[in-house]
């Protein structure tokens, strides 16, 4: 029985890492602009479809990945330019509706271009399960874990070690002060949306071989990711990983012990608890308001 628990936690945790990656995309843009792309899930889906097209055109896996990621970056920049920039300039909350609308537009576009069917996503990574202490894990799942952790480490290092990254941090800390120091906030926000698109594309490429690709593939994913981002707090990259792993395992365990119909419950309960008890998130910093 104990072994079943571990198996469930491992399988759930791996899905949880994907939630974390999508949640990380929310954080990146929130840090610089206090705005979120509510169409993040659709970016995941569009990038997955685009990568699938590249694969079908005969591109090998290692060339398809940069192509898919590049598409993600361009799509992220497009969202920023079309949906977010004007709203931010006018200090309005219009970006909420705009990003949702862009997302819906993305779904319609995908339905028209690629059709509404779920499709398999070919991958060279083997899907035969391997046994570790009687726990089955597929190399594909391990690749998801490695991919998620790697991209987050790279981006975090970029933010901390490079000049451009420091600008990023500066804008998130205090936009006005950063502008006075000669850092272009607009450019930094563009950068954050580009990175957020990159993260979405990677999530799409990693998760598609497991979940298949379809216009609605990300709708469930993005809700979970949102819970993860809010529960962890919108500031902590490390936090989303922890909360993602936790929520993923919890969902698996709930659907085993309580019933498969209750699978979605823990995410929602956590979300409500977090909002009621600690609105800034477990790993978030308390906001100090100067009067």
């Amino acid at each position, binding site marked *: 029985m104990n072994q*079943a628990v571990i198996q469930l936690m491992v*399988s759930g945790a791996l899905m949880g890492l994907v939630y974390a990656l999508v949640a990380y995309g929310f954080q990146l843009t929130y840090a610089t602009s206090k705005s979120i792309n509510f169409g993040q899930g659709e970016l995941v889906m569009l990038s997955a479809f685009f990568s699938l097209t590249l694969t079908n055109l005969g591109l090998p896996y290692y060339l398809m990945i940069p192509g898919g990621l590049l598409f993600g970056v361009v799509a992220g920049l497009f969202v920023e330019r079309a949906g977010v920039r004007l709203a931010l300039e006018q200090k309005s909350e219009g970006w909420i509706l705009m990003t949702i609308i862009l997302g819906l537009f993305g779904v319609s576009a995908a339905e028209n271009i690629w059709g509404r069917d779920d499709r*398999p996503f070919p991958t060279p990574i083997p899907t035969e*399960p391997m046994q570790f202490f009687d726990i089955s894990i597929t190399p594909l799942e391990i690749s998801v874990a490695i991919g998620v952790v790697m991209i987050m480490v790279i981006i975090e290092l970029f933010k901390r070690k490079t000049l451009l990254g420091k600008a990023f941090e500066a804008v998130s800390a205090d936009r006005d002060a950063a502008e006075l120091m000669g850092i272009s906030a607009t450019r930094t926000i563009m950068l954050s949306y580009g990175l957020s698109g990159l993260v979405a594309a990677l999530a799409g490429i990693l998760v598609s071989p497991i979940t298949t690709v379809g216009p609605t593939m990300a709708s469930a994913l993005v809700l979970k990711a949102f819970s993860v981002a809010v529960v962890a707090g919108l500031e902590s990259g490390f936090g989303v990983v922890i909360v993602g792993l936790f929520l993923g395992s919890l969902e698996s365990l709930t659907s085993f012990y309580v019933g498969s119909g209750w699978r979605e419950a823990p995410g929602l309960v956590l979300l409500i608890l977090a909002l009621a008890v600690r609105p800034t998130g477990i790993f978030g910093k308390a906001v100090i308001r100067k009067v």
Partner: protein
Amino acid sequence: MRRAILTTLLAGLFATQAYAADSIKIAITGPFSGGSAPMGSSMRDGAKIAIAEINAAGGIKVGAKMLKFEVLERDDEAKNERGALIAQELASMNDLSGVIGTVNTGVCLAGDKHLQEKGITKIITPAAGSASMTQWSKAKVKDLSIFRLAAHDGIQAAMVVSEAINRKYTKVAMLYDSTNYGVSGRDDMAEQIKKQGNILQVVTTDKFNIGDKDMTAQLLRAKNGGAQAVLIWGIGPELAAVANGMAKIGLKVPLIGGWTLSMSNFIDNSAKNGNGTLMPQTFIEEPITPKAKNFISAYHKAYNVKRIPSPVSAAQGYDAVFIFAAAVKQAQSIDTKKIKLALEDLKEPVQGVITTWKKPFSTWDPANEESHEAFRRDQVVMGMVQDGHVVFGNDADRKRLISNATSVKGKK
């Protein structure tokens, strides 16, 4: 001047009437997009091959005229509300001879009442959920214009359970999706397990939702319970997630379930993990008879595919058109009510691709839905997934079908 207008109007009136009487207008409805599309579009395409064959031969002789089929297509997107709207539209047409189609049981429940009210003849295919016919027997309808050409879930559940018993299994897990179709499939299976002597012990009964990808929890319960087979009722994408999940946790037992396990989106998305999966089929894409060979190659050629997305749907769509055409010929009319009467008492056997249909329907009896159900147990076979194709699961079935076909020929 006024007379001139009147004559033109009259002429126009006659012209449209003459046009209407020159063709047999039927509607084909079903989901041509979305998760159920492999079934809907195969059914439509199979039906259109039959129509093309009939029209190419000049049509059907009604009175002194040769009438050709004219087809209306309607995509219900597998949505109940779309289905209801389409049924209302069709029910309002005065010159419609009949309707063929519908894949989703929920769509039948939402729409068919409008057709029944107007007495428009419909052959349901391939929707298999029991409720689409039992709704009429429960309501004790006296006269019914709805027929079905599909192996209904009652037959299928019986086959699924007896397959597990024949394979000497004693412990099974039962999984189903949370839609109308899945839940009624679960009930049918549970009832059959009881009926067939409670030989099978159900170690777990579990559901999943449309769109679920991770089935680890449900499958671990099955594995821990020592299930020797997973009996399942759902549709393509989620079935594939179950097959993939089973491979992952090393649950190496067969998946046995409703005919939806032959959908292309199950077969493609589960790839080699789907091998060995068993499901009832009314048609296997194997050219075992000359009629089947012609049909399969006609389909491949017409739609430029190497595999029919849902062979069962395509074959049923094809046969439904020929049965309908036979009724038109017997009724000597394009009036939908007369066609209905003819369907209930078809004198001539109809050569279909599935079988030779002898009196597929009889006069509606509210106490027995089978009066409007064409399929019986022995027209259905067990199919098995094998490297991307559905083949015969039991060789005895193949031999039976071949000998049936040759014996019919012998009689001729």
